[in-house]
């Protein structure tokens, strides 16, 4: 086994000690019907960046420089590369950037041409994540996306030439998607380093959920299972390794920010609605852009909620997150309790989880939530 394979326990466990920063950019050209993130159409991007810079400037650095930066959204490329560069610089000056740190940005295919890509590269980004979603024009339309398949393929080509590390996001299980596996193969043919496959999910309050309530077809879980299995086989045939429920990467190319999240590691976060995990506490910023800006400009904290897990609950969270990974998680007290419980025995018998030395792993990732609920239902023990 290559030691840098992203399903190598040593690799993923080490991420617990790494630190990251997430930056949220809420602006979009239009809203996708399935999206429930903190986004809005248009807005004063300059004012927002000013707020971001102020929030970063007042943040407490970690005891080590950042191992990963992730600028997500929304549509980060709704900000000009010049302004994005300021954000990266601000993070670097406030937190420091470790040598070889992953600096990642999300982008929509229609926004990425050679000029923009070069601008982003110059701004300091070394990894790009393209929201391809599908290479089927009718699926893209029903997902409310602005780009077509040709634009997506072109953007993947540009990204491949300019960025050391390229990811493509795909959405599976869109009702009526008859060409899913073609989309997967098409993206893999563009020589991506990383592939994220997300199941179309009907979230409350979205246009999609209203459409489904009004009688539109909902994603079918069995079809989604087929899609997932087909994608897994295709990705692995192309040399990508599944390392988390939805994520595949070539050895050495796992998303560090992602690994930190699932290792219960720490990350700072900036922007409206952004979630952070620092000093054992999870907290999140106010969702509305205008309120976020007002608070930051008034020198107040934009935090709108917190959660501080301790003891057993924190241990359960560690296992809950770690089980998302192909490498599993050191069993510890919660993982051991799960394996020893009647529910755990049923899950082992059904081939859903397995003990692996001192680790516990989910062996049927499509049933991960079944495992998670049993984990949460365990009687707490002192720890």
């Amino acid at each position: 086994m290559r030691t840098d394979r992203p399903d190598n326990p040593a690799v993923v466990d080490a991420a617990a000690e790494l630190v990251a920063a997430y930056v949220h950019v809420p602006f979009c050209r239009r809203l996708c019907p399935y999206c429930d993130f903190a986004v809005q159409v248009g807005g004063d991007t300059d004012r927002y960046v000013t707020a971001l810079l102020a929030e970063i400037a007042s943040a407490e650095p970690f005891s080590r420089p950042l191992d990963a930066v992730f600028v997500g959204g929304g549509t980060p490329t709704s900000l000009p590369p010049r302004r994005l560069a300021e954000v990266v610089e601000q993070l670097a000056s406030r937190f420091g950037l470790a040598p070889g740190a992953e600096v990642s940005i999300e982008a929509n295919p229609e926004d990425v041409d050679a000029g923009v890509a070069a601008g982003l590269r110059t701004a300091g980004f070394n990894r790009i994540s393209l929201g391809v979603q599908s290479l089927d024009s009718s699926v893209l339309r029903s997902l409310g996306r602005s780009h077509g398949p040709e634009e997506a393929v072109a953007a993947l080509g540009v990204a491949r030439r300019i960025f050391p590390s390229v990811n493509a996001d795909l959405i599976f299980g869109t009702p009526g998607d008859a060409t899913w596996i073609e989309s997967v193969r098409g993206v893999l043919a563009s020589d991506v380093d990383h592939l994220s496959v997300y199941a179309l999910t009907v979230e409350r309050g979205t246009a999609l959920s209203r459409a489904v309530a009004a009688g539109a077809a909902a994603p079918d879980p069995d079809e989604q299972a087929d899609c997932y299995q087909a994608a897994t086989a295709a990705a692995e045939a192309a040399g990508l390794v599944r390392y988390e429920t939805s994520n595949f990467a070539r050895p050495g190319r796992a998303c560090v920010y992602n690994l930190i999240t699932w290792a219960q590691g720490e990350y700072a976060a900036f922007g409206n609605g952004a979630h952070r995990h620092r000093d054992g506490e999870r907290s999140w910023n106010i969702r509305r852009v205008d309120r976020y800006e007002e608070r930051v400009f008034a020198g107040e904290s934009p935090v709108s909620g917190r959660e501080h897990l301790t003891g057993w609950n924190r241990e359960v969270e560690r296992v809950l997150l770690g089980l998302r990974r192909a490498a599993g998680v050191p069993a510890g007290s919660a993982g051991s309790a799960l394996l020893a419980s009647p529910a755990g025995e049923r899950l082992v018998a059904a081939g859903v989880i397995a003990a692996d030395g001192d680790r516990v792993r989910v062996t049927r990732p499509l049933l991960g939530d079944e495992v998670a609920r049993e984990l949460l239902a365990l009687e707490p023990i002192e720890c």
Partner: protein
Amino acid sequence: MTDTSRIRNFSIIAHIDHGKSTLADRILERTGAIAARDMREQVLDSMDLERERGITIKAQAVRLHYTSPRTGEEYILNLIDTPGHVDFSYEVSRSLAACEGAILLVDAAQGVEAQTLANAYLAIEGGLEVIPVLNKLDLPAADPERVALEVAVVLGGDPGEVMRVSAKTGEGIDALLEAIVDRLPPPAPAGDGTLRALVFDSYYDIYRGVVCYVRVTDGVVATGDPLRFMATGEDLPAEEVGVLTPKAVPVASLSAGEVGYLITGVKEVERIKVGDTVTRRDRPAKQMLPGYREPKPMVFSGLFPTDGDEFERLREALERLRLNDAALVYEPETSRALGFGFRCGFLGLLHMEIVRERLEREYGLELVTTAPSVAFRVRLSGGEIREVRSPQDLPESIERIEISEPMMRVMILTPTEYTGTVMELLQEHRGVMSSMNYLSKERIELVYRVPLAEIVFGFFDQLKSRTRGYGSLDYEVDGYAVSDLVRVDILLNELPVDAFSAIVHKDKAYLYGRKLVDRLRELIPRQLFDVPIQAAIGSRIIARETVKAKRKDVLAKCYGGDVTRKRKLLEKQKEGKRRMKMLGSVEVPQEAFIAVLRVDED
């Protein structure tokens, strides 16, 4: 001793919601028993549950003083409240036996309903003088002319003699009070002076024990008298006698013709039987008053706590409920599927509903209720007759010769336009017509003999929906009949689930099994493996479905670092999981058990 010629003992009888309690309140108010402003609305319905359902569980007797404004004569009116909706009319008949007269109250908009008829017949059979009264004259929809005609057909009188009131506004109440003293007879003269008093109701008081409501027919009962309860053979002292005004007021004695309460110090409600006759131990009467019947449970159902740890609390709750509900019977039952619980017997469906609701509401218990069953009589090869109250107890087919099931005489009143659909409904439920009477051109009375088992699931709702709410129903026990019955079992993942078994007619077994299997397939969530659901008669499978193993149960989407929300969502789902019962290795939601009750409705 009160001059009996100045006493009037009467009840108000009516179909549910025809305004009986409101009329009672108005009468109490007019006779000064209670000041209008102090009056809690409808004082005779004292339990919260009754107030919500608009029905009365326990009858009470109130003594009222009335001075006729016309003659200046003073009267004592004993208003005896009958249960407004009961499973069987026995309870009503006991209350009526304490009266000489009855007010037959009919909603002037709704007209005569099944219980109006059933109660009117009871009163007439009991030899009571009946004053027909139309209520709710204030309603715009009131049609007193038409309804007076219907009433006249029932009672065989003159529509002109039907009185008209609005209990809500008070209109016509004065005239009604005059009619009560004019038209209703006083108590009949007493016999030889040997004490006989009818126990027409009882009530459990936590301080005083069982309080009996009595009507003295002969002789006198005084505080301290040594008494004998003739049906049970119990000898007990009269610790206290009194009247309700409606407050309890002790009196020295109650004489023939009077109505009041009697306390003996007995704490166990089952030692006092409604319908029993009280006499003196030292000078006992030779004959009981007529009409006594032993209360007999007719409908049986298993009650199981959702949480197995609540079994003891359920036992305590049942013990306490039984303190004032002698008709409730129960014995421990063990179900492989549901664990420890109780097999409970009820007088009927309403009784079952009330008990279950009280257990859930007053005692905060979460219960799984199994499909109601009736008491079948099984004749065994040896000739022995065995009563079977639970499908589990049905002997194997080779051990039995025949099964009989309890029958009901069902009386339905409906607008004539629904006659066809009502007859169809009764046929579907194995009913056989006994008679059909036109009450008027628009209304018809249908009398059928129907197995009780056929009306225990949702029959009343079906009748209501087929007649757009206009049909009404009353029923009476009508013996047993031999029938071709089988037990349908349900197997989940090859294991029989006792809680889902039912004894049904052979011709309906396939349909029953099919429906139940289909319903369960919808209700049982997909598990980690395929779950076959089968219906079987003995070893023969009559229906089968499979709940396919689930393949995807994971949130595979982008989180943007929001770990908290994901965990909270899972925690919420976990709560749903807690409400599941494990049957073997299969998780079954509570709703599945309730669905069994509803299998006959669609």
